[in-house]
């Protein structure tokens, strides 16, 4: 016995290396022939996302293709990570619209406050997660890019269980 190895005196009657090894091998063999594998073949196959998944933002548009945003300034105010840049403009009819609307997805913590606070239901988080870029600048989504997103938007609550019970 090696020095300082903790020795446990176990009952010898019910301990067997051979039989437990065979048992283990039966188990691994069962798993080997089992056609059910847990791997998801990622680029081809994707995880189904929850309806409440909060991912890449998306700006919804009116029927004429313009962003719904009225540049009220609530979302940059509520944003805890200060990732929304909004410069409001006003057209000749007095309607406000965003001159610049940028979201830095790299700073964003995907809390969903912007979607919650938006009075026009314009800005949404989306059920989407594949936003890799080669530069930090690439993560700054401008209005054009936000309106161009097509993925489904996040439900802030489960429609079947609105109170979250």
């Amino acid at each position, binding site marked *: *016995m*090696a020095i300082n*190895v*903790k*020795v*446990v*005196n*176990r*009952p*010898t*009657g*019910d*301990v*067997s*290396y*051979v*039989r437990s*090894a065979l048992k*283990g*091998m039966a*188990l*691994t*063999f069962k*798993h*080997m*022939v*089992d056609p*059910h*594998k*847990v*791997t998801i*073949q990622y680029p081809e196959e994707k995880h189904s996302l929850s309806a409440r998944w909060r991912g890449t933002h998306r700006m919804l548009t009116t029927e004429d293709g313009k962003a719904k945003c009225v540049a009220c300034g609530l979302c940059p105010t509520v944003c805890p990570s200060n990732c929304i840049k909004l410069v409001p403009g006003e057209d000749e009819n007095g309607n406000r619209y965003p001159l610049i609307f940028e979201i830095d997805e790299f700073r964003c913590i995907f809390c969903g406050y912007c979607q919650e606070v938006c009075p026009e239901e314009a800005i949404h988080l989306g059920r989407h997660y594949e936003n890799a870029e080669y530069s930090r600048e690439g993560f700054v989504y401008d209005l054009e890019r936000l309106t161009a997103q097509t993925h489904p938007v996040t439900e802030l609550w489960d429609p079947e269980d609105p109170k979250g019970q």
Partner: protein
Amino acid sequence: MSAPVLMLLQVASRQVEATGTGVFLISTLVKMLVVFTIYMVGVAMLTLAERKISAWIQDRHGPNRVGPHGLLQPAADGLKNIMKEETYPDAAYKPLFIIAPAMAFIPALTAWAVIPFASPLPTRWGLIPMVVADLPIGFLFILALTSLGVYGIVLAGWASNNKYSLLGGLRSSAQMVSYEIAMGLSTIPVLLLAGNVTLSVIIDQQAHGLYNILNLTIAFFIFMVAAFAETNRLPFDLPEAESELIAGYHTEYSAMKFSFFFIAEYANMVTASALMATMFFGGWDIPISGWENAAPYTALKTVATALMFAVKVMFFIFVFMWIRWTLPRFRYDQLMSLGWKFMLPLALGYIVVIASVMLGLDASGIEYGPLYGLALFGVNLALVMILFVMVDHGRIISPSYGRLDPRELEKLRGKRQRSALARRPDAKPAAGPTKPAATAGVTR
């Protein structure tokens, strides 16, 4: 073929053993090339097989991106390893550092020279035996070569000048030396039964009776366990022991030199599997049917027997992988006590038992054949029952913990108490909280 070469080839009867230097040289060369090619491709594919089997066992898919079902993965791995940078540690002893991977690999490859892999092939120059070199000392040659395999590992560990590598090398030398003895002794009954050390005779003996797995079951178990230890596969992979020694003896190796150790491991595995198939499962003999080793040899028989041999070898390779992905590594003291305290006495005792049974059978005038085999099988069945069912209750096989004799335990406790008593007068007053009584002892 040029005229002088043709002159060396004497045309002979197809069913008579080929003679003549020319035929010998050319056929040996061709066999070497074929065996080497198949062996190397096989070893490459085994790296894929290992990853696939491990994946399946762990409910994964395994590599499936390179080529159909990942079949080109070995090629991609090989290419990557060739392109990678070869690093040399400053403190390494370069000559041995470079030569060690080759030394690990060559013995495993060379051992294949004496393993017969199919029934003789009839050609217009006579029968060509399907073995690269049918050495009369076949099995001794293998024993000699496989013990050389340890040099590659030990020298790699030493030449790296790295503590982990050195520990890996030391462990492997201790392990391989310990298990070599059990391995050698476990094959004595095989040699007793065959009365010869030529592998083709051992196959022939099994073809005309029962396979040695039935004749000599216990010897097979000892040989298999020893083969696992010799090839450094789990549960005996202490020389590399990722969790303890990073990568053991090949910690400092990179690129193709690392790859060579990898290839050597698989090559050793194939050789060990081929040996198990040859010595205990009848080699290239097709079970039950006596068709393939009867006189008129044909090319079809050669192909069929070669396939049979491949199936047997692959089965053992699968067992190697299956066990690797099932069993955890032994602790070092378990390894040593299994080798020296269990396998060695068992192998020795088994030689005595088998020799006595053979003596008894010979004395009672039973010829070698199925009946002889059945008698041996009966003895083995009894031994297996005794060993693995009756005696195996944590007494012999289980090395998963060390048992302490109660008397030993009392002695240790006594010693502890005495030393505590002896210390008491020297102890300064109020030197801290009093320790609990020293009964905790080793059994804690």
